[in-house]
C-alpha cells in the first residue's frame, strides 16, 4: 500500500497552534490497559493493589472489601453477585486511577476460557496488556516447564489484536521457595513461547500482587530483578498509534442534511464519521465507495471548529463539492493518480484517478470465535465493517490454531473460543485491508443472523 503524499499536513497547518490543529495528542489520553491470563493468577488482586497503592480506593469502597478484618483486594473489581458467589471474574470491569504522570483505564478481563469473548472485548480497545502468570502453578524446577493454556491463548489474542505492548507479570513469587530461580526459568519459557509464536514482549516483570512487591515501587534485587516496577513501566508505554501514514479512509457514520434557507449552501449535506486512516483536507480528491464516484473535499468540520484538515482518530464532518449519492456505511477514500498506461481503445473510458483503497469481496481472515454456536462453513452471517452491514458467507475453515502447540490443524468448524483461519465471501465489495496494515479497514465483526449475537472478531489477512 503506497502512502499518499497529498495527505501530508500543509505548511500552514504546521505553523498553527498545535492545540488547535492537533487536539488529540496521544499522550494526553488515558492509557487503556487490560489484565489477563489464567483464572486465579491474581488479576483482580493486582488491580486492587494498583488502586489501593495509588490511593484510588476511597474509604467506603475499602470498607466494602473488608470482612471480619480481612481485606480481599479482588472484591474491588468483581462487582456481579454471580462473580462473588463463584469467586471468579465473568465480565470485564473497567476501573480508573491516575498518578501524577498519567491517567489509566483498566479493563479487568476474565481468565476463564468460557469468557474469552469478554477478554477479547477488553483487548480490542487496549493500548497495553498485562498477562499475569502464576508462579505457584508452574513446575518451575523443571527446565521444560509447561505454560498454562490461557497464558498462551491470551498472549496470542493480544498479539492478534495488535495491542501495542504486552507485558508478562510473573505473580506470586513471594510464595515460592526460590523467587530468583523461579522467575529466571519462567521468564525463559515465556520468551521461548513468544519467539515461537512471533509475539513481541515489551517486558517481563516479577510481582507479588498480594504483598505489593514491585507493583508500585520498584524493589531492586527482588527475584533477581533490577528493572522498573510495573507502574513505572506503565508510565512509559505508548498509546495505540492511529493509522495516520496511510491514504485517507473515512467511513460515513451519519449523513446530516441541511434544508434551512438561511444556510448559504442550501441542500448541503455533511458526512460525519471518524477518520479511519490517513488525513482529510480541503481540496483533496476523493472517491466514494462503493459507487466509485469522485469528488473534491470542499469543507472539513470538527465539532467546534473548521480546521481544514483532520487525521486518523479524529471525528469530523466532510462536505463535498458536488451532489453525490452517499449514505451511512459508504466510505470516502483518497483518490490516487492512475499511473497505469491506458490502452488506446480504452482511452475515453479511463478514469483520471482510482481509489487508494479498492473494494474486495473475497477475503482471508483470522477469526476469534466467541459464540456458543460454532462457526460453520456455508452459513451466512452479518458482517459489520466500519458502519456498513454486509452479508458474509464463510466459504471454508482453512485451519484452527492449536493453542498449545501453535500448530495449524484441519477443522470443519470453529467452536467457541477457537482461533482459526477462514475464507469469507462478502455480498458486496468493501474496502478492506490487512489488519496489520490498517486497523479499521482490517477489522470486522460477524453477527449471528438469528440471535443477533456478536459471534466473531475478524482480523483480515488479505
Amino acid at each position, binding site marked *: 500500500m503506497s502512502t499518499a503524499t497529498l495527505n501530508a499536513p500543509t505548511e500552514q497547518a504546521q505553523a498553527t497552534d498545535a492545540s488547535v490543529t492537533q487536539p488529540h495528542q496521544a499522550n494526553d*489520553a*488515558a492509557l487503556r490497559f487490560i489484565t489477563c491470563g489464567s483464572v486465579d493468577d491474581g488479576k483482580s488482586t493486582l488491580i486492587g493493589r494498583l488502586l489501593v497503592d495509588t490511593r*484510588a480506593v476511597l474509604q467506603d469502597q475499602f470498607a466494602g472489601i473488608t470482612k471480619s478484618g480481612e481485606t480481599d483486594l479482588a472484591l474491588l473489581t468483581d462487582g*456481579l*453477585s454471580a462473580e462473588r458467589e463463584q469467586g471468579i471474574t465473568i465480565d470485564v470491569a473497567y476501573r480508573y486511577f491516575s498518578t501524577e504522570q498519567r491517567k489509566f483505564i483498566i479493563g479487568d478481563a476474565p481468565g476463564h476460557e468460557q469468557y474469552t469473548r469478554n477478554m477479547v472485548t477488553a483487548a*480490542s480497545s487496549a493500548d497495553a496488556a498485562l498477562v499475569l502468570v502464576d508462579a505457584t502453578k508452574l513446575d518451575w524446577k523443571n527446565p521444560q516447564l509447561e505454560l498454562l493454556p490461557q497464558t498462551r491463548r491470551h498472549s496470542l489474542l493480544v498479539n492478534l489484536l495488535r495491542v501495542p505492548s504486552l507485558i508478562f507479570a510473573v505473580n506470586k513469587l513471594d510464595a515460592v521457595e526460590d523467587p530468583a530461580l523461579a522467575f529466571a526459568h519462567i521468564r525463559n519459557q515465556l520468551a521461548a513461547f513468544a519467539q515461537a509464536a512471533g509475539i513481541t514482549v515489551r517486558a517481563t516483570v516479577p510481582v507479588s500482587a498480594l504483598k505489593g512487591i514491585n507493583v*508500585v515501587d520498584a524493589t531492586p534485587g527482588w527475584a533477581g530483578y533490577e528493572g522498573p516496577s510495573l507502574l513505572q513501566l506503565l508510565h512509559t508505554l505508548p498509546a495505540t498509534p492511529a493509522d495516520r501514514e496511510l491514504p485517507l479512509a473515512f467511513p460515513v457514520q451519519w449523513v446530516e442534511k441541511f434544508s434551512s434557507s438561511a444556510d448559504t449552501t442550501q441542500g448541503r449535506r455533511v458526512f460525519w464519521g471518524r477518520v479511519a486512516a490517513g488525513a482529510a483536507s480541503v481540496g483533496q480528491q476523493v472517491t466514494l465507495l462503493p459507487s466509485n464516484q469522485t469528488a473534491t473535499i470542499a469543507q472539513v468540520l470538527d465539532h467546534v471548529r473548521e480546521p481544514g484538515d483532520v487525521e486518523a482518530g479524529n471525528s469530523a464532518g466532510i462536505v463535498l463539492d458536488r451532489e453525490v449519492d452517499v449514505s451511512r456505511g459508504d466510505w470516502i477514500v483518497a483518490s490516487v493518480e492512475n499511473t497505469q498506461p491506458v490502452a488506446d481503445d480504452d482511452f475515453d473510458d479511463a478514469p483520471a484517478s482510482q481509489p487508494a483503497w479498492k473494494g474486495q469481496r473475497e477475503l482471508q481472515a483470522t477469526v476469534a470465535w466467541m459464540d456458543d454456536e460454532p462457526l460453520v462453513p456455508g452459513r451466512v452471517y452479518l458482517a*459489520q465493517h466500519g458502519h456498513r452491514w454486509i452479508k458474509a458467507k464463510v466459504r471454508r475453515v482453512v485451519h484452527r490454531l492449536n493453542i498449545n502447540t501453535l500448530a495449524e490443524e484441519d477443522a470443519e468448524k470453529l467452536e467457541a473460543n477457537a482461533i482459526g483461519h477462514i475464507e469469507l465471501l462478502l455480498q458486496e465489495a468493501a474496502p478492506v485491508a490487512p489488519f496489520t496494515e490498517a486497523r479499521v479497514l482490517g477489522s470486522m*465483526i460477524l453477527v449471528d443472523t438469528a440471535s443477533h449475537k456478536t459471534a466473531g472478531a475478524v482480523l483480515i489477512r488479505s
Partner: protein
Amino acid sequence: MNARTEPALLSQLSNRHLDALEEETIFILREVAAAFERPALLFSGGKDSLVMLRCAEKAFGAGRLPYPLLMIDTGHNFAEVTEFRDFRAKELGAELIVRSVEDSMARGTVRLAHPGESRNVHQSVTLLEAIEEFRFDALIGGARRDEEKARAKERIFSHRDSFGQWQPKAQRPELWTLFNTRLAPGEHFRVFPISNWTELDVWQYIDREKIALPSIYYTHKREVVERKGLLVPVTELTPPKDGEEVVTRDVRFRTVGDITCTCPVESTAATAGDIVIETLAAEVSERGATRMDDKTSEASMEKRKKDGYF
C-alpha cells in the same frame, strides 16, 4: 504519590485528556442518531446529563438535537433541578418528554409498600412504560463506570431484552468501535456515552466548558440532620425523626436524584474549580457519601439493573 496527596500539583492538573473523552462521547451520540429509529436521551437536569448535552450540542450543533429528551419524574425532585431542566431544554429548543411515577401509581402499575418509600426504584416501571408508549429503541443515559461496581461491568451499548432486563452474564462482546446495534422486536439498547468519564473528569469538563448547573451543586446553607454518617436534608418528604437535631450546614450535592435518597456533603465549594479540588481530596466515593438506597446490599444496583433500572 498521586495528586490526591499533593494539593500543590493541582495548578498543573492537565485537562487535555478531556478531548479524548469528549471525542468518544460525540462519536457514540452520533452513532445512536444514525443507527436507531427512535432514540431518546434521558435528561434529569443533573451534572452528568448536562455534560452529555454539551457533547450533543457539539455533535449536532445548537438547536439540532436529533432525538427528544426524556425525563422519568419520581415527583420527589429538587425544585432547582426541575426548573433548570426545563430551562435548559427550552434554551436548546429540544423536545422534552416527561413521564411520571405518579401516573404509574394512578394506573396501578406501581404500588408503594409504604407512602414514604423511595420512588427511585420504581422509576424502572415508568421508564419501561415510556419505552413501550413511544417504542423507543435506544435510550441514552449518563451513567459512568466509576460510579458503582455493577456499572463498571456494563457495555457502552447495553442490550436489553423485551422485559427491559440487563443480562450481565450474556453481554454482547464489544469490539473496537464496531457497535452491534441489531435488535429483535420489543428489545432495546441502553447507551452510555460517558461510560469512561470519572467524577473528576465531569467536574474538570464543567469547569473547562463553563457549563451551567442547578444551584444546589454549589455551596448553600441547608437544614439537615445527621443520620448514619450521612447528612439528610430536612424537607417535607424527609422530616427529622424523633430526637434528631436539625442543624444548618454549608453543603452541596455531589449527585442529585430522588429527594428521599439523596444527601448533600459538607462543602464551601462555590465554583466548579473548587469542586475539582474537593474531588481530588475526597475520601469517600460519590455514591458512598450521598446515596441511602445503595447501602442495603452489595448487589443492590445489579439487582435493580436486572429489573430494568438505568
